[in-house]
């Protein structure tokens, strides 16, 4: 048995039920997420990704179905829902718009403070987490409103990380950033996951990013769970993904094409560099044989 940390069972949510604007944003979603994995959620716009993750920390309550955290229904005790939010940290799209304190330090400390931690513990966490997101000490006393967009984003993400959640959920953490900003944010998330060993779930529109950093990929399509599995498994359904309006990463397509043509490419590759190596290795094998 795999070690499951977060699980949904037949989760369904309907916005504005019994009105003209009724929309079922997620329908019958059952998925089990293993502890310590990095999950990428992909799906066409409006497929219900954001709605799904808002159920993970109990900001929304499914019209039907349950969410289990460590095997326990998060809604079992209504009063405990706040503690669920500390264990499942959700960082929304454009999180920089939630900054409000006078200094970066205070803003990052907001979550830990709400948890009722001691001053020393808060101080330790703020400093640690800020180094995770690659901001130096001098940022601590700056006003979050004076930072650049990318820096604000990193401070906001740090604010969630500082709660040291068992599961960190990020909704499109790279939206609206330039390529360098995207790469920075992705690598800091990856780094965070490796160092803390926690479970990380990230919603993204970029198949490349998902393929690059995720262990598992969850595909949403028209409110339903379409696929959940390893990167390779999911992207092997290239045709179906395309019919959902999703594209598979270029390198992945190349890999599949090579396999199809019967070339013995050994390992999957996601970057140009990996592709070069794999193909060269392939040729070498051919020469040797």
């Amino acid at each position, binding site marked *: 048995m795999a070690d499951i940390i977060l699980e949904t069972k037949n989760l369904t949510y309907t916005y504005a039920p019994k009105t003209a604007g009724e929309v079922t944003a997620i329908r019958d979603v059952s998925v089990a997420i293993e502890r310590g994995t990095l999950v990428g959620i992909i799906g066409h716009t409006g497929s219900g990704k954001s709605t799904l993750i808002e159920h993970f920390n109990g900001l929304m309550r499914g019209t039907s179905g349950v969410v289990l955290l460590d095997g326990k229904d998060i809604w079992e005790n209504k009063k405990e829902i706040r503690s669920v939010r500390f264990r499942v940290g959700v960082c929304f799209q454009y999180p920089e718009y939630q900054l409000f304190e006078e200094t970066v330090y205070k803003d990052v400390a907001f979550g830990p403070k709400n948890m009722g931690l001691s001053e020393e513990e808060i101080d330790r966490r703020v400093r640690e987490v800020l180094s995770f997101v690659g901001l130096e000490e001098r940022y601590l006393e700056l006003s979050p409103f004076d930072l650049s967009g990318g820096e604000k984003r990193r401070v906001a993400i740090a*604010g*969630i990380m500082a709660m040291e959640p068992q599961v960190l959920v990020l909704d499109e953490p790279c939206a609206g950033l330039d390529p360098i900003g995207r790469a920075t944010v992705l690598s800091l998330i990856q780094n965070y996951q490796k160092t803390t060993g926690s479970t990380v779930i990230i919603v993204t529109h970029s198949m490349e990013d998902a393929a690059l950093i995720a262990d598992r990929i969850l595909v949403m399509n028209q409110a339903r769970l379409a696929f959940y599995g390893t990167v390779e498994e999911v992207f092997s359904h290239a045709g179906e993904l395309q019919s959902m309006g999703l594209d598979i990463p270029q390198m992945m397509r190349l890999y599949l094409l090579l396999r199809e043509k019967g070339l013995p490419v050994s390992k999957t590759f996601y970057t140009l560099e990996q592709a070069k190596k794999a193909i060269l290795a392939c040729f070498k094998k051919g020469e040797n044989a």
Partner: protein
Amino acid sequence: MISDITIGQYYSGTSVLHRLDARVKILLTVLFIVIIFLCKNFLSLALMFALTAVSILLSGVPFRMFFKSLKPILPIILFTAVLNIFYIKKGTELLSFWVITITTGGLATAFFMAVRIICLIMCSSLLTYTTTPTDLTDAIERLLSPLKVLHIQVHTLAMMMTLALRFIPTLIEEIERITNAQKARGADFESGRFMQRVKAMIPVLVPLFVSAFRRAYELSFAMSCRCYHGGEGRTRMKQMKLHLSDGVSFLLFALVLAGVIVLNHFFGKLI
């Protein structure tokens, strides 16, 4: 939820009331309010009530929309009714113990006031349900345009109102978003004493103001980029023209006004 607020909620339709000129509708609403305060007895009030009921039926807006707009006012209606019942001592005594006496006059006044308030609310809701906010501000701008003589910037005021109306839903959405984001960081809005709750709003209000200002700047830049320069010399995309139905409704209101005056005159006060 907060999004239940019905300010400027337009219920789309094609009824006679929807098609009436917005200026006419505003004037008639004002006239209605004046007339209903002229009513002195139940007969004239009944006439106004009938006018309200007929207008509601004509509008094709479902009843539940009106109940929804009444809901927030209900406590006020009940409060005034209770006050009237206990304080007005006229007519025959119905009930009397300790300091409380209830008279027929008190009951009648309470009922009269309640119906009057309900008619008022219905009528103003009717205006916003059958007129789009843009039409409404447009009409206000035109009705107030004589004030230009006094160097009042009517166009600017109207533009500000249009924008304010336009951004109410946006800001409500924004509040919900920020509230959720802060809840995700463990912010607690539900428990604690009054002062604690007020303090708990800071993490929502600061980002809200920041984003409202940001939006305002962006919008003003976007408007200047499209050469917006205030009302001077602007022509209109939508011309407002009076139709026969507008004249007819004015006539109808004049008749009702006459009716109320006659009823007031011949049937005396209240009961």
